[in-house]
């Protein structure tokens, strides 16, 4: 079989929707499972080596202040202290914006987020770091650094930051107003807009119009493993970094940019990762640990954040104010929608308002629309990506209004979405024409699900009310970026799969399964491994639901190359033309000759050159994902507490490679979405101090707060992937807040316009309604 024929076979496969797979769709044990459940898996903080020093960071006690002076002499004088670094140790960078991960980054701002320059911009902003012989000495030394501040008034919410008289965070910031640069200092980094049709005409065609303003709190991804980095700046100038990251190569690039070094000087070794959800794309500690190593006689330095550090200085996604005005005709057709979104970016520009502008209306076909988005800096930590960035709060607003329109029109909420739901060929609100995607299928499956067909349970007490809500969500995914893999056939017939995509959600087993399917062998015969940045080609971050899609394509292509090479080897063995060889289900056949993959690998051995393949690709496919969720809640009308009784997530998942991990993605996204909906929020005092910087008071749901989350996998294969893969990890966090709000409205008649819908906010809303 020649390579051209193989390519044709591969692309012909794409259009086949009902193929019978041997490996894909099964549920093998994940390769990293035994190490994870026995505690042998190595995470960043597990690294130990001779001469290891420990680094600690001094963080700002103020939300907004100018740094007058930093005196490190008392810290350096402490026995056991090796070095102190401040912003003065970092190269001065130009203000240049580059793409990093799914978002963009201004290198100068990244640098001053690592160690504050002229100003501290949030409570917990890193100012200096110390290396010492143990973490306790380092901690004590950090407390001996004397910093003189000129305290400035903080702005915490977008409303505060957008006031004309607001305290200004970044003196040089000017609004990018629809592409034009503003002339006056501001906290509004940008204003973007898209519009289509005629709003006035659309609203006048409506028989019912709903207009509401929604406010949502800052929330954190809540990954359990804190950020960490261990670095050696070698005497040869080579830097080695062990870290917890969603992308080794992206971490390498960021370290290189802020230290102004070529990437070849840096090797990043990505360790096992205890959750990221977007929050482990940007770097925080790596260059600081490297600089401490350089100044500590090239000894290795390890830095690990505390939980407070994680909550106060990393992660969060934007608090927001979102206004939605939507009109619908008597038949349920949405005739017009006007929305504006203001998202808190934290200390530096870069909130996910751009993706929120797409998420908010994209499930629907609307002819007359205007969407305005504002990126606003605030004295809170720099916003990082969080699972479908900006989507949950946007969908909370839109799905609430769609539900209210349906109620007013007397239309079932699923029917309302069926009437307006986007189909293949429709123009999306954010511009492109929609390709084949199974949104309508999710709605139909929702309508016929046992959950939706069941009656609501009775309230558990006289003070409680129960209700049901529905919500949908759209997410764009990132079916692109670069993925590189290498494959080596071992002399026992097993196959090493060398990749560089961080495995957060079970991607190693998914990659192994796609390679096994391609080669016609078993997944357990593939050994997938995520290696350091020197040992594999470039890989973009595991983010944007791209890995199983993009790296999966690379794995498939590498598998085809291996088949090609194996056919060549069999041809030599049998002295036949390679074109006569048929490869199917792991068996090579030519006339009466036939040989299995393993046996051929043994025959090839190591003496005559290995069978290897490397592939690097950058697909530019399509991968939008849509989901519909159903939730039953019980509300205690005396305490305002909302209990989730039942939850079903229905999603178009393309092809589920390993269904257990797809279901896990849906359940994980829902769990986080429920946390966001009900209790998670950053609580600041008037001076901008974070008051709840612990997992005791930052209330992520526990297992006791959630029911078993039911999942329905709708498989509409993605036509741009050889196995039909569609990214699945992000969209499940988009619908929950809206669905829960709609269930609360159904139970109580109360239309919540604030997140979280915590007991306190629920009571306040009840009291306001009673007035």
């Amino acid at each position, binding site marked *: 079989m020649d390579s051209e024929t193989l390519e044709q076979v591969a692309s012909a496969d794409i259009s086949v929707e009902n193929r019978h797979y041997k490996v894909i769709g099964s549920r093998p044990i994940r390769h990293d499972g035994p190490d994870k459940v026995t505690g042998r898996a190595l995470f960043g903080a597990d690294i130990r080596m001779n001469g290891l020093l420990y680094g600690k960071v001094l963080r700002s006690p103020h939300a907004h202040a100018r740094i007058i002076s930093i005196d490190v002499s008392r810290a350096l004088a402490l026995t056991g202290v090796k070095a102190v670094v401040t912003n003065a140790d970092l190269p001065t960078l130009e203000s240049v914006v580059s793409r990093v991960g799914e978002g963009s980054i201004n290198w100068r701002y990244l640098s001053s987020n690592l160690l504050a320059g002229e100003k501290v911009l949030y409570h917990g902003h890193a100012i200096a770091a110390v290396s010492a012989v143990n973490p*306790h000495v380092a901690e004590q030394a950090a407390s001996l650094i004397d910093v003189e501040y000129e305290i400035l008034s903080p702005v915490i919410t977008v409303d505060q930051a957008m006031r004309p008289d607001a305290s200004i965070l970044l003196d040089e910031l000017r609004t990018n107003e629809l592409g034009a640069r503003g002339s006056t200092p501001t906290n509004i980094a940008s204003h973007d807009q898209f519009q289509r049709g005629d709003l006035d005409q659309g609203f006048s065609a409506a028989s019912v119009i709903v207009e509401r303003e929604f406010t949502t709190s800052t929330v954190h991804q809540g990954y359990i493993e804190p950020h960490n980095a261990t670095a050696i700046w070698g005497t040869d100038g080579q830097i080695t970094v062990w870290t917890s990251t969603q992308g080794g190569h992206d971490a390498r690039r960021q370290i290189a940019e802020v230290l102004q070094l070529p990437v070849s000087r840096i090797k990043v070794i990505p360790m096992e990762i205890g959750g990221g959800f977007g929050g482990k794309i940007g770097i925080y500690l790596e260059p600081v640990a490297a600089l401490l190593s350089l100044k500590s006689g090239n000894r290795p330095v390890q830095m690990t954040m505390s939980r407070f550090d994680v909550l106060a200085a990393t992660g969060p996604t934007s608090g927001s104010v979102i206004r939605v005005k939507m009109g619908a005709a008597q038949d349920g057709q949405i005739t017009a929608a006007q929305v504006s979104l203001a998202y808190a970016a934290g200390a530096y520009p870069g909130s996910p308002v751009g993706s929120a502008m797409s998420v908010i209306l994209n499930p629907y076909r609307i002819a007359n629309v205007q969407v305005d988005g504002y990126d606003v800096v605030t004295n809170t930590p720099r916003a990082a990506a969080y699972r479908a960035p900006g989507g949950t709060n946007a969908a909370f607003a839109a799905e609430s209004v769609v539900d209210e329109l349906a109620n007013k029109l007397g239309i079932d909420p699923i029917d309302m979405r069926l009437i307006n739901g986007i189909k293949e060929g429709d123009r999306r609100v954010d511009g492109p024409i929609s390709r084949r995607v199974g949104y309508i299928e999710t709605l139909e499956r929702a309508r016929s699900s046992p959950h939706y067909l069941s009656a609501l349970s009775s309230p558990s007490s006289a003070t409680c009310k129960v209700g049901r809500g529905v919500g949908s969500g759209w997410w764009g995914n990132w079916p692109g970026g670069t993925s590189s893999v290498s494959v080596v056939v071992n002399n026992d017939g097993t196959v090493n799969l060398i990749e560089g995509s961080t495995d957060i959600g079970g991607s190693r087993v998914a990659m192994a399964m796609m390679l096994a399917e391609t080669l016609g062998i078993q997944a357990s015969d593939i050994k997938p491994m995520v290696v350091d940045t020197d040992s594999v080609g470039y890989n973009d971050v595991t983010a944007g639901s791209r890995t199983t899609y993009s790296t999966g394509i690379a794995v498939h292509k590498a598998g085809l190359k291996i088949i090609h090479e194996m056919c060549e080897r069999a041809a030599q063995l049998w002295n036949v033309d390679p074109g006569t060889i048929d490869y199917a289900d792991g068996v090579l056949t030519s006339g009466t000759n036939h040989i299995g993959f393993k046996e051929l690998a043994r025959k090839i051995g190591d003496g005559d050159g290995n069978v290897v393949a490397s592939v690097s690709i950058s697909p530019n496919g399509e991968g939008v994902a849509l989901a519909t969720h159903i939730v039953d809640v019980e509300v205690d009308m005396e305490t305002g507490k909302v209990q989730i009784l039942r939850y079903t997530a229905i999603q178009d998942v393309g092809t589920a490679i390993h269904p257990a991990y797809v279901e896990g993605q849906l359940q994980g996204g829902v769990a986080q979405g429920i946390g966001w909906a009900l*209790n998670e929020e950053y609580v600041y005092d008037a001076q901008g101090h974070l008051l709840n910087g612990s997992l005791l*008071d930052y209330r992520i749901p526990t297992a006791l707060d959630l029911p078993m989350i039911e999942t329905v996998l709708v498989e509409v294969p993605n036509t741009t992937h050889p196995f039909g893969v569609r990214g699945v990890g992000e969209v499940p966090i988009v619908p929950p807040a809206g669905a829960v709000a709609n269930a609360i409205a159904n139970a109580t008649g109360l239309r919540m316009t604030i997140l979280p819908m915590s007991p306190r906010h629920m009571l306040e809303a009840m009291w306001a309604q009673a007035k």
Partner: protein
Amino acid sequence: MQAFEYIPATTVNEAIAILHQQGDQARLISGGTDLIVQLREGRRKPKIVVDIKRIPEVNQLSYNLIDGLTIGAAVPCYKLYGSAVIKETYPGLIDAASLIGGVQIQGRATLGGNLCNASPAADSIPALIAHNAIAVVAGMNGERHIPVQDFCTSPGRTQLEPDEMLVSIQVPAPRAHSYGAYLRFTPRNEMDIAVVGVGVWVALDDTRVVITAARIALGAVGPTPLFVNEAGASLVGQPIGSQAIEKAALIAQLAAKPITDMRGSAEQRRHLVAVLTRRALDSAIARASA
């Protein structure tokens, strides 16, 4: 965390002598579920940590019909609900003991530590107050008894002198037809701090129709757990029923002095005091009537 010296004391006198010598440089440790966290976060910086877990008196857990219940200061929560007779006799205390942390924490955490930590939101203190518990305290000049309702003086502070230690908590033997209950409100179902906690105890007459005594205590609505004498007193002589309960709940609500913080607003807390007082009284009365 700052380095400290660790001394395992074997007698009450030894522990007191160290406290006397070191003053506030020393801190007692039992389960450590509060202290270790405070040390790690730098909120307390003692030079000496004195472990009392090897002292016999602080490990006693006994119950009889005359003396009631003695809970040594170092007895972990799980031992309370591990005892069938205590579980049956003092379900109102068990309500609290089984809420403090998760199962692992309850293997270490003690009611004594919960009391001495003196958090306004402590779960066991309102329950102990409702049960009319007494703190037995040892010092250089011997032993003294402090009603738990008077034990805490402000957040994190108690009536203990620097050289005094809590030895045990005495809970009176139950009267006939008397039971307690403790309820707290938390946004999460577990792993949370009380936004409001309410401990109650009621005694009924032999017909189990009339309330003969009642005590109500509140948590997280003032600088210390609050004993609301008037609320319990209002129930005495009243037939059980919603009217009397509503009145007691209203009195409790008026006595609350809540603040707004990250865990809840003052208004929310005031509201919850009435809700939880009602519910806790319903629960205790149901137990006493059964």
